[in-house]
């Protein structure tokens, strides 16, 4: 069952095989939890919300029309439930009018590699948490949930152009945060 496509599993579940839903939960639990956590920023609440999301998705499975991917449909439930938990109606964004300068188009990854040699997980998690809400959520959706920009636009109602800028800034801020964290760490060691 674990190798079956989402559609096959959904058909099984709708045919009455409730246990088949386990495969979907196992497949998406970390991604759902990661997205919920990056919206709520509290592990206990995010875990509770992630459980609620899977129960909601199970109860609403008949309404899933297969016009979009199951993951997109599921992430929509995640966004709505997590925002509701955070008592927000929608994402708040600041209009980004400024142009991306060539200076900003540096190779972020090579800098990351250069600066992070140990405790990568700790630094990256700290840096992610330090990002602005919209940057952190868009980065999570784009890199971790592997959603294309147009689907992120559908889920967040942020314009495609803004998402691209937010992602670019997110990458840069992630690097800045890591750079700052590492400098502090080095100072502490000295």
């Amino acid at each position, binding site marked *: 069952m674990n190798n079956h496509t989402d559609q096959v599993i959904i058909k099984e579940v709708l045919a009455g095989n*409730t*246990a088949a*839903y*386990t495969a979907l*939960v*196992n497949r998406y*639990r*970390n*991604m759902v*939890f*990661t997205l919920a*956590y990056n919206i709520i920023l509290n*592990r206990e609440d*995010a*875990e509770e919300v*992630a*459980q609620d999301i*899977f*129960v909601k998705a*199970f*109860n609403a499975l008949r309404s899933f029309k297969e016009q979009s991917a199951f993951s997109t449909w599921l992430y929509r439930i995640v966004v709505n439930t997590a925002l509701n938990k955070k008592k927000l109606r929608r994402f708040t964004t600041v209009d980004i009018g400024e142009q991306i300068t060539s200076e900003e188009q540096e*190779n*972020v*990854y*090579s800098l*990351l*590699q250069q600066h992070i040699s140990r405790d*990568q*997980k700790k630094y*990256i*998690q700290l840096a*992610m948490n330090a990002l602005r809400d919209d940057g952190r959520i868009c*980065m*999570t959706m784009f*890199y*971790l949930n592997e959603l294309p920009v147009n689907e992120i636009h559908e889920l967040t109602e942020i314009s495609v152009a803004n998402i691209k800028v937010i992602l670019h800034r997110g*990458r840069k801020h992630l690097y800045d945060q890591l750079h700052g964290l590492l400098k502090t760490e080095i100072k502490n060691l000295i």
Partner: protein
Amino acid sequence: MRMQEDKKLKELLIKHAMEETSADFTNTVMQRIQSAAAAKAYAKPLLKQKLPKTLIVVFILVCIVLIVLSIFMQDAQLPFLFSVKLTAKYFSQIISFLIAFWVIMLINQLWNKKKVQTL
């Protein structure tokens, strides 16, 4: 170059920024689903779904038949005397009962609605 950088950043984030649920996450979700399904299976409705609709349709039909009959029937005297003399006290009691009944009904409905919303 940019694509390559993006790919590497993605790998790095998947490796280090992906959060993990607790070990018993799936079991908890499945237990919740199964207990909800079990509760649903045992909670049979007190009235069959079609019964209220059937009652309304029958009531409307009877009303129509009586109205039609009343047009065609001539004034006729009933074979028995049907007269009940009620004092004003009875009427005030009936009105009080109806008011109390609908007030309690309304409060009950609002209370139930509130309870459902908070669940």
